[in-house]
């Protein structure tokens, strides 16, 4: 049976979010993604001809703040959550394919 989301798409999406997945997992997700998408595709049956696209679900607009600086969080607090740090910086692995 052909899936709405094939394994190729699953692998591409996995690459975009930098997740390594096996061929077997790609097969599994292909089936799962497809059934989710197929379920949502039911929405396409609704006539939305004269309905403008929604960009917000709370019906709020213009929630703005004044341009005023407020104290930031402490660096120590922040770095506690970082897997690795050095001299106050967050330390990360070299990015492949970067300059």
């Amino acid at each position, binding site marked *: 049976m052909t899936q709405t989301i094939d394994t190729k798409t699953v692998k*591409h999406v996995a690459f975009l*979010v930098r997740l390594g997945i096996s061929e077997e997992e790609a097969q599994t997700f292909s089936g799962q993604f497809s059934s989710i998408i197929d379920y949502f595709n039911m929405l396409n049956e609704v006539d939305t001809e004269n309905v403008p696209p929604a960009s917000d679900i709370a019906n709020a*607009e*213009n*929630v703005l703040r*004044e*341009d005023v600086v*407020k104290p930031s969080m402490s660096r120590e607090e922040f770095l506690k959550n970082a897997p690795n740090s050095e001299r106050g*910086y967050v330390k990360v692995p*070299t990015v492949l394919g970067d300059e």
Partner: protein
Amino acid sequence: MKYEPVIGLEIHGELLTNSKMFCSCSADYGSAPEPNSNICPVCTGLPGAMPVVNKKATELAALVGLALNCSINKHNTFARKNYYYPDLPKGYQISQYELPIAEKGFLEVNDGSENQLNVRVRRVHIEEDTAKLAHEKNYALVDFNRAGVPLLEIVSEPDIRTVEAALDYATKVRAILRYLGVNSGDMEKGVLRFEANISVRPVGSDEFRTRTEIKNLNSFRALVRASQYEIERQIKIYEEGGTVVQETLGWDDAREVTTSQRSKEEAHDYRYFPEPDLPPLQLSDAWIESIRSQLPELPEAKTARFISDFGLTPSEARFLTSERTLADYFENVVAKSKSPAKTIHSWIAGEFMRYLNDSGLSIDDVTLAPETLAKLIDMVTDKTIGASAGKTVLTELFKNGGDPAQIVKEKNLLQMTDVNAIQEIVTKILNDNPKEVDEYNAGKETLFQWFMGQVARTTKGKADPNVAKELMVKGLEERKK
């Protein structure tokens, strides 16, 4: 076959706000004492943090849109641009996609041959800057002080056909941002960055061929050099019967070549979707008009006024209006001075700028009051002092301040205008140098400057040069055998 380039520019400029785009952390990462000192859960992408739009940033963005002759979208929305990179804490950048704050503008630019053309501005949208990455040998260090700083992206249509026009467009956008006070234009600090989309096609054709996108253009020089390089590279490919590959290129400033960044190509799939954490901006006509009323006189309009009001040439006017502070300074001097505006332009474009350039100063550093400069220029105009004495006084004013009249007195620089006194000096020089007089009268006309030099030396440059010249010509004529 002759080819022409088709160029579109994307300009990224940070907005000069106090706080960041979606949180209340200081946006002034340049003066942050330490890395990761201006941060909070929002700009470091901690779970559950909610962004709130900076009101000032929307005003500045609209101001830029209006200055670029755009229409403002009364209903505009935020979107997530998803990509995975360590300088992007949330895994997406909040940006505007389908409905940017401003679109469909234009800017008049010069194509390098005094021809004006309109470059259409496709859109102006709000987004947030990324963190700064410092690359070490086997790892990278991340500083989030810049993450979340308001950033404006100004995208042109591919209407540019020469590198000169691209440079002029970028220069004009920078000048407008500085006029509006929304960006310092300080490229060395990275507050303004360019990207160029380039393709080439046979002259006369209206097709759009495959384009490449050059990133990391952090100076006007890089913009020009990278564009020239890329245009030549593509023409060469076509001439050899090849095809240009659509790709993202980096610009290597040191080697002056574009380099392929193909590894990122697949990542160019941003999966934009509406930002669920931010409601749309709904802008009223009244709000838009109140922003429009804040628009200052922009460089183009100021240039036109300087030409018509002050009788300046287009290039003189463009020089003075290149910076708002310079234009204001000039107008203040004109207002305080009795001298013609043209004369004031000559002083400012000449000695004044020379001093600034030699001292590595900018117009913003000048403490010399416009009325003081006006006084000095008037003393030269009414021949109280000579032009060279004027330069001496100007240097003194720049270095130590003071009053021009006082400096003239102290340094004994009053111009010698007494015809009899000058005649006496000229006669003595002619009598003392019979050999040079004979040579001159025998046809060695270049000696005239030497004679004038003698006058300048004897009088320490104080003799009225026109009187001295006239008397010298007459004296030499009389001694013709």
